[in-house]
């Protein structure tokens, strides 16, 4: 083994590297951090030219909405605790409670439970505790300053978009579409990926090649194919289904199927490479013992496939959740998901209040993704590299 000394960077180089990484991290996180800060301020502060005004929000504080240093300390501690729980503990708990077979279901339930608990702690418990503490501390001289508002913060933009503008409907639509896409895409894709990994026929080869071509297609090409039949589907299907013929345009389940199909090429490539890593001897042994192919798949492969499936599922989730083009063209206003819905917020932008509301909507969309990276960082990284190493 080479001694570590010889490749140890010299001091100036180490400093350069450190500086470069710090700059990169700043650039990577800054835009997202900044819109999060803006979303909690009154428009005057949020669009101020002075960055300090944006951070401390004097107008927002003057309007009587603010956080004291005490709140801030408590809040940061809570956030840190929630991060540690999500990143370090949650995976272990889920694996222990759910066991191998039910792992994905465990993740879904665990994730939802965690989200609910986190929201409860942040929205109900934290303000109550902080309020109580402030009331105790305030009369004490000097220490009482800790309880005075230091940073302006308001939740009114969130309250406005989520309830008055009914953004929660878009959230539910997003939830339905995303859940549908992930479930169907994984069910269908796992079967196909497994078969593709266990066969050497030229048919499989051509299937994978065409999947690769499909993967590269711009989605607008496909949507121009869907639109006319989707809008007229009631007339087209009438001879077969009679009056029950549905208009596919605007139907969430039709969009789910479309997104599943668009996502299928990527899913089968990725799952195929995961299954290729599971030794074929495993299911061959089960087949020798008298299992059918399906039996071998269910009893032997299913228990060991979850890491790959979860990773692929994350990417399906991202595709469905982040999609703008397909959902904005194929869904009407009342079934709209969150990402296209936000376009109506920022296109309105007549007043700065509208703009800050759009910012708050944007932050609301980003928050679940943020949680996703915290919990699944390892899987995302392994998914990104799996595609590269396997081609």
């Amino acid at each position, binding site marked *: 083994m*080479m001694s570590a000394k010889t*490749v140890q960077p010299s001091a100036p*180089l180490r400093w350069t*590297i450190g500086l470069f*990484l710090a700059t*990169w*991290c700043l650039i*990577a996180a800054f*835009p997202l951090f900044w*819109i999060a800060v803006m979303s909690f301020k009154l428009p005057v502060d949020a*669009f101020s030219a002075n960055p300090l005004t944006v951070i401390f929000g004097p107008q927002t504080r003057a309007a009587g909405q603010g956080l004291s240093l005490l709140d801030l300390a408590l809040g940061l501690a809570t956030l840190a605790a929630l991060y540690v729980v999500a990143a370090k503990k949650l995976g272990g708990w889920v694996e222990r409670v759910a066991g191998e077979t039910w792992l994905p279901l465990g993740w879904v339930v665990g994730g939802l439970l965690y989200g609910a608990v986190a929201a409860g702690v942040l929205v109900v418990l934290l303000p109550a505790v902080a309020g109580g503490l402030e009331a105790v501390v305030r009369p004490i001289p000097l220490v009482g300053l800790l309880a005075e508002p230091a940073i302006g913060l308001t939740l009114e933009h969130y309250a406005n978009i989520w309830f008055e503008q009914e953004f929660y409907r878009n959230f539910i639509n997003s939830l339905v579409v995303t859940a549908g896409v992930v479930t169907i895409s994984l*069910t*269908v894709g796992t*079967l196909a990926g*497994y*078969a*593709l990994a266990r066969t*050497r026929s*030229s*048919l499989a*080869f051509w299937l994978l090649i065409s999947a*690769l*071509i499909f993967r*590269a*297609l*711009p*989605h*607008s*090409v*496909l*949507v*121009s*194919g869907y*639109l*006319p039949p989707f809008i007229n589907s009631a007339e087209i299907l009438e001879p077969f289904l009679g009056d029950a013929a549905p208009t596919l345009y605007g139907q969430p389940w039709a969009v789910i199927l479309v997104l*599943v*199909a*668009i996502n*299928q*090429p990527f899913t*089968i490539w990725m799952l195929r490479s995961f299954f290729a890593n599971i030794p074929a001897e495993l299911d061959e042994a089960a087949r020798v013992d008298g299992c059918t*192919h*399906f039996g071998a798949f269910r009893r032997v492969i299913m228990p060991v496939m979850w890491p790959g499936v979860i990773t692929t599922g994350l990417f399906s989730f991202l595709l469905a959740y*982040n999609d*703008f*083009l397909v959902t904005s063209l194929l869904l009407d206003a009342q079934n709209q998901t969150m*990402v296209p819905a*936000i*376009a109506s917020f*920022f*296109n309105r932008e007549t007043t700065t209040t509208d*703009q800050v509301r759009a910012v708050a909507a*944007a932050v609301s969309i*980003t928050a679940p993704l943020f949680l*996703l*990276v915290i919990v699944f*960082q390892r899987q995302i*990284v392994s998914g990104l590299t799996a595609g*590269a190493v396997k*081609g």
Partner: protein
Amino acid sequence: MRPRTFFAFVGPSLVLMILFIAIPLVSVFLQSFWQTQTVFERVEIENCTPGFPAPNCTTQTVTRPLLDESGRTVTETIYVGLDAYRAVVQPEAVAAAFAAGEDFWSRLSNIDFWKALRFTLTFTLITLPLVVGLGLAIALAVNAALRSLRGPIIFVSLLPFIVTPVIGALSIRWLFIGDGILTNALEAMTGTQIFMFAQGWTIEILMLTYRVWHVAPFAFVVFYAGLQTVNQDTLESAVIDGASRFERLRYVVIPHLMPLIVFVSLIHLMDAYRVFEEVIGFSSQAHRISLQFLTYDFLMPDDSGNRSISRASASSMLTMIGIVILLVPLLMRTWRDYKPRG
């Protein structure tokens, strides 16, 4: 695995792909040659106002949509050949621009399709080296950083990659819009008034910046994984032979990463060619549009509620020709990798 079993496993996925990818492709191809339009009829309407000695009558010829018995508009589908393509590419306008001589480029960039093509190609080709270079730089830096710092750095780096593209673009736009803090900082530095969204080229720079910010983490993670498998013995011999840090990078590390660089480049080419969300996020349609946005714009209902499906199909087909050209090297590679075993 017997063909029957194989089909049972692959069946559902195959059906979905045929139904929702292959068939739409064929129908887009056909749609680009046919046009569905409302049938209009010309009718003479006589309007009479009371008058003396005879009522005052005027006869007007009115064009109005033909209605069937149930009151719906009648549509007909006619074969228009390459008309839709002509409407998109506008060969006459190109010829006119060519004849005009020196301001050929500025005239050409007034035509939507050519404007979109120009932007899409510059976008793809300029971001490519930036993404690969920045990704490689971060990967090398993280590889040299303290082990305990690597996890948090990867976490922060993943954020731009995972964020919804439209939202990512918006978050950068809000930093620059109007008197946004970064515009303000730039103005303070240069001492001039800056309006980032008033002209095309500044928006274009923002769009390029956003894309590099968004994709560099992907390149970084892939290269970082590749760096973990660099052959330590080769590196050690290079050190013994007196190779400098740069020479080790040039002759050992980069060749080792070459397949990954090719992979990242191809994926990036495919994705950047589909550039679309930036146009929405930065609202750049007045100045800069992309090929995919051109199709999207045709598909969106216009003021009278019509969608120009056949033009959208024509521009889709043209976009696809570009993708096929980009894909050839990737397909060749897959062919080589798979065929010997297959």
